[in-house]
């Protein structure tokens, strides 16, 4: 559902719901107030009065949120107005766009674009991780028959043959590949074999990491999709509805705070923290870029597959080359780890922090939710 349609739904669908709920709650609490006054029950009278005040607060909150949604879009446009490339496509936030199918110029809705960009980045990274896993194990895609082994596979075959081959004459061993670990031409094979085992172990660790990254990426994708489709359309209006009643006030506050923080704060923070984000220029004197390709000349992180491959290859050569290049690849390793895991996690944590305080403001109890979120994340 596009955001302009969402706002139209607010005017048509949500307001009558809130009006009916507010009238119902007012009737209930007014009855309680009358009962309390009749039987001279000060506690109940105080409770009824506070609940009537909450109903008024709910109505005012609805009016405020209608105004807030529109303002939030303008704030988001000003904060994240700019460009980011993803999978060869330029995502522009803010400004105006032309819809050729309808022949109209409409205002770019940055938050919808922001969610599409986040999903694009996650899909791209997930694809890179998959390609990296495939590239680590050539046997997965190799279908050539055994005798035509070539290159590294043929080398490995000879190494295994030399290491495990043994020959003897009249019971006297004359060659055993496993005797030569300390030196000699058979020892070289043994040493080579040990490095192969090292490479296999390294690949195993990299695969384990890659699978964990895949779980994280897919989880983020599912969460982002759910936030985009349901938080503004379902959780926000139902949160306001639930907040109108005493027993469901905490849940209503939870839904409202989650909707506001995860739908508005999370994508803005994600875009702002993205290293590939290029803010749009505000100066009228700066010339427009001459071609689309020049807009894409921004610093971006190395792709997952490139860096993991370089890490794996440099680790093999560390003993010969020295530690300087190994440390350079560790630096690359930490950078893509930052992009894949830390960056989204920081954005989510900031959003949940906002949610926690908004929930407290709206009368909810954030303790249980905060513990749940901490455990899950």
């Amino acid at each position: 559902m596009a955001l302009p349609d969402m706002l139209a739904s607010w005017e048509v669908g949500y307001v009558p719901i809130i009006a009916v709920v507010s009238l119902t709650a007012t009737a209930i609490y007014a009855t309680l107030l009358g009962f309390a006054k009749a039987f001279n029950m000060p506690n109940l009278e105080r409770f009824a009065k506070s609940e009537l005040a909450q109903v008024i607060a709910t109505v005012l909150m609805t009016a405020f949120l209608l105004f807030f949604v529109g303002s939030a879009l303008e704030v988001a446009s000003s904060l994240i107005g700019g460009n980011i490339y993803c999978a060869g496509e330029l995502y522009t936030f803010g400004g105006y766009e032309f819809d050729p199918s309808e022949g109209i110029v409409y205002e770019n809705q940055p938050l919808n674009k922001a969610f599409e960009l986040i999903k694009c980045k996650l899909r791209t990274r997930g694809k890179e991780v998959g390609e990296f896993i495939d590239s680590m194990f050539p046997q997965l895609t190799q279908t050539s028959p055994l005798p035509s082994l070539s290159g590294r596979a043929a080398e490995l075959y000879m190494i295994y043959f030399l290491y495990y081959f043994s020959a003897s004459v009249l019971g006297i061993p004359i060659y055993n590949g496993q005797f030569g670990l300390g030196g000699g031409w058979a020892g070289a094979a043994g040493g080579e074999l040990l490095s192969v085992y090292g490479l296999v172990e390294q690949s195993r660790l990299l695969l384990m990491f890659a699978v964990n990254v895949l779980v994280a990426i897919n989880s983020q994708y599912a969460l982002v999709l759910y936030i985009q489709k349901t938080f503004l359309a379902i959780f926000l209006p139902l949160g306001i509805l639930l907040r109108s009643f005493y027993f469901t006030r905490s849940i209503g506050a939870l839904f409202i705070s989650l909707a506001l923080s995860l739908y508005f704060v999370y994508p803005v923070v994600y875009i702002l923290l993205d290293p590939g984000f290029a803010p749009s220029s505000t100066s009228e004197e700066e010339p427009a870029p001459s071609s689309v390709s020049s807009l894409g000349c921004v610093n971006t992180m190395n792709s997952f597959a490139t860096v993991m491959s370089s890490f794996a290859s440099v680790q093999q050569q560390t003993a010969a080359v020295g530690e300087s290049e190994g440390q350079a690849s560790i630096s690359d390793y930490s950078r893509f780890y930052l992009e894949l895991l830390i960056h989204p996690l920081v954005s989510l944590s900031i959003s949940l922090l906002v949610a926690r305080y908004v929930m407290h403001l709206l009368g909810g109890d954030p303790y249980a939710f905060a513990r749940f979120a901490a455990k899950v994340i």
Partner: protein
Amino acid sequence: MMLCEQFNDFLLTSLLPLIATASMATGIIIALVLLLGRAIGNSRLSVWAKDEVVQLFFSLAFISFVPLLVNLSCTLNANDFRNILLEETSSEVVNLYDAAELYVLSAARYSHEALAAVRYHLEVYAVLSASSGFECAFSFLGCLFGYTGDSFSLFGGYGALQSALSLFFNLTVISLMTALLHYFILSLTSKAFLFFLLPLGLFFRSLPYMRILGSVLFALALSFIFIYPLLLSIFWIGSDFVLLVPSEIGEGDAYLRAEEDMVGRAGAAAASSVAALASLVPGAGTELAQAAIKAFYFDDVDERPYAVMDFAVRALFAAVILPTLALIGALASTVYIAKFFGQQVDLSRLMQLM
């Protein structure tokens, strides 16, 4: 759900008589204490009796509130909210309890499909990685001069995908078990809590010195009778956006083949594999063997290991994260409702368990 039909009968035949009995018993005790207080001139007893009268009226008020709440849950149509919020047009009537049950069952079915897809791929890669070949040392003579040669695990690289998919297999098993657990919790709480814990809580709350226990039981019952199904029904409203099968995955049923179909196909695949491996073209059997195994498993479904990983994680989100959030919300509401009755309840250990 049969709950709504059973509740009215239960209300008339069991709950109301129990409430009447408890109220009469409490009323008699209060009257005796008041008389005793007046008789011996003890003002504390009189004040206590008057407080208990007020509490008795409160309890009766809550008792009238509970059937109202249950009937509201049985008559509210979750589909109407769905039609308004998501601009859909559906005339089906789905009350809160039905919506909650639909969500957990849909999540369980979704997890089961994910489990089937992951298991299917896992089986293929297990077969491929376990396949091995033996090449005699003097291949032009076969193994006539002793059984010497080299053993090969030609498709051992598939072990990588096998170990990766094992993690996702565990995730989908957890998702399926959790969804079923939530279905059982929903069934248990909406019946046992409604027909046992709630009357027990009301009864204890009516009695003077059991009020704390009664308040806690009542708060717990109210949370799980109303709040927990309410949250699940809200997730049901948005379930179209969470129970999405990844577009690359084929129909889930294709992963669950009929047994007789498997036997016939296994025989045909085995025959073609043996023929391929026995081929006189050196090493050509390996390619044909792999192709034969893959053709057996993937002729009408696509090989999509990364899409099934995505499927598994989505199942985790739908079947574990959201229902657990509903459960924690219900427990947090218990604390909130208990505060209304003037009691502080510490459910932190239960929250940690969740």
